[in-house]
């Protein structure tokens, strides 16, 4: 089994009698500031709910290769299977092939809850393929949620069909609400049988985005807005974007860092436009925290990604491998769902108990967690390709983002050459909580001022982070009074 998969056995490892208690809503288990009806829609959607991303998987089917706008951060000609960024895809699919792939993934991955069309072009540029795919999937596996991602240019033409098909999650990428800024991000659009350039193109795109957003939210479709944070171009302006999309009913705003590398062949990559540092990204997210609820767990995945958000099993489900797929068995999924119900409720209770023990005011610290999903600390330090970062203080432990890294371990051997990347990913972090860690990396982390512990192996993330924090406070107090 590939290493980053959550096995059923690895998450319900403390089975209890008493059965499946429903998750209590209105607590921190669900977003506090979302209406109940919205929470019900997103509670199993990993891209829309931070809590769900610990438990549920998504898959993108690459049925939309063509795009109707050009973005300076995009170059679809380049594809590397190791690369995780939007717009990249290894294999285009017809709607029929997409269905075959969805069936194969559903049989193999009981966590699958969402099928999305996110490109590699625009899902609505040639919308028929996208809608045909959704029709086929909905007929075969009606429990799967459908979602699509678009730049919004064609959106107003398809609002009725989206609502009628029950596609209740739509993501619009809106980088700006100012055509002057837009012209620096989107050099041209193809609209109504002609190409438009510069500020005029950006103005049309902006107007169509606002029209589509308003029409969708007016019909009760949940809309998330993605904005690419581009330092020096729209960083100061994203507050205006946040206000504009909030006013039109967007329920989630996702600020994503620009991925810029000359090797990708994008205009920004080739002209030296840099992406934001983790600190700049977080500062922008913190500044916008008061508006539409911000999303911090986005992994900017490929248009053919498969699996939990931190992983991509796309390579396990290429067309060539689909014929060997086993049939879909709904019982496996039902078992998984009942485990998740219990886990969510237990995890929440553990967090509340740990929190009650804390009362002293203290400055927050950052804790990095090695996890392969399920909301537990269940990954070896040396196997982590990303760390989930939690901010911990006496008010509790909050997920604030993830940081990618290189694996420390390669076939059981420490990779000294990856150490710099690991230390960079752990910048500002006080502790690493993982399932296991070797003596050598533990000492090296200690030398960098970072405590690493496997004391909380396989326990729930938040409760462990709070317990670690509280024991640190107590030992600090003892040291101070000695």
């Amino acid at each position, binding site marked *: 089994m590939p290493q980053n998969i959550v096995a059923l056995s690895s998450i319900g490892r403390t089975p209890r009698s008493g059965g499946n208690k429903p998750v209590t809503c209105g607590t921190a288990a669900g977003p506090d500031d979302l209406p109940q009806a919205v929470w019900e829609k997103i509670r199993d959607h990993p891209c829309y709910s931070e809590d769900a991303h610990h438990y549920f998987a998504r898959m993108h089917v690459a049925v939309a290769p063509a795009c*109707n706008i*050009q973005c300076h951060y995009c170059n679809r000609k380049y594809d590397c299977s190791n690369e995780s960024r939007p717009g990249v895809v290894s294999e*285009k699919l017809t709607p029929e092939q997409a269905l075959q792939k969805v069936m194969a993934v559903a049989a193999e991955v009981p966590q699958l809850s969402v099928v999305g069309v996110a490109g590699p072009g625009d899902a609505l540029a040639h919308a028929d393929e996208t809608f045909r795919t959704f029709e086929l999937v909905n007929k075969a596996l009606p429990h799967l949620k459908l979602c699509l991602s678009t730049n919004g240019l064609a959106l107003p033409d398809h609002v009725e069909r989206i609502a009628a098909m029950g596609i209740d999650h739509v993501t619009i990428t809106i980088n700006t609400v100012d055509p002057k800024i837009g012209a620096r991000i989107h050099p041209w659009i193809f609209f109504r049988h002609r*190409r438009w350039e510069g500020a005029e193109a950006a103005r049309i795109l902006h107007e169509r985005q606002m029209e589509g957003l308003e029409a969708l939210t007016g019909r009760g479709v949940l809309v998330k807005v993605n904005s690419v944070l581009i330092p020096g171009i729209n960083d100061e302006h994203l507050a205006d974007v946040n206000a504009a999309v909030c006013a039109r009913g967007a329920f989630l705003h996702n600020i994503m860092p620009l991925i810029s590398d000359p090797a990708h062949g994008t205009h920004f990559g080739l002209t030296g436009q840099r992406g934001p540092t983790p600190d700049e990204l977080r500062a922008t997210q913190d500044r916008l925290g008061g508006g539409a609820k911000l999303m911090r767990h986005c992994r900017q995945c490929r248009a053919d990604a498969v699996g939990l958000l931190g992983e991509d099993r796309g390579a396990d489900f290429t067309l060539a491998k689909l014929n060997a797929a086993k049939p879909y068995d709904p019982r496996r999924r039902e078992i998984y769902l009942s485990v998740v119900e219990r886990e969510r409720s237990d995890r929440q209770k553990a967090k509340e108990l740990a929190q009650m023990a804390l009362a002293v005011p203290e400055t927050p610290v950052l804790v990095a967690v090695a996890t392969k999903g399920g909301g537990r600390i269940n990954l070896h330090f040396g196997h982590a390709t990303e760390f989930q970062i939690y901010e911990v203080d006496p008010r509790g432990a909050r997920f604030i983002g993830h940081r990618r890294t290189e694996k420390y371990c390669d076939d059981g051997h420490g990779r000294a050459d990856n150490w710099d990347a690991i230390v960079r990913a752990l910048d500002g972090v006080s502790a690493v909580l993982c399932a296991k860690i070797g003596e050598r990396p533990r000492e090296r982390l200690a030398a960098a001022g970072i405590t690493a512990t496997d004391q909380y192996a396989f326990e729930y993330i938040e409760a462990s982070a709070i317990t670690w924090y509280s024991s640190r406070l107590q030992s600090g107090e003892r040291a101070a009074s000695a």
Partner: protein
Amino acid sequence: MAFKIVAKNCTGCGACEFECPNKAIKESGGVFAINDKKCTECAGFFDTPQCAAACPIPNTCVQAF
């Protein structure tokens, strides 16, 4: 009068095929090609050739001769 697609630039996205009013564009081996017997450079349909206006790669849908 016809357009052609420079195969080494083509990303295979199919934007051109969808826009072509003459159904002159077909995929072959992951890239697209224009049938010059069907192509009219969109005369009578649009002001500019649609394949070139929709194509994401510069200098890829170009005049054949």
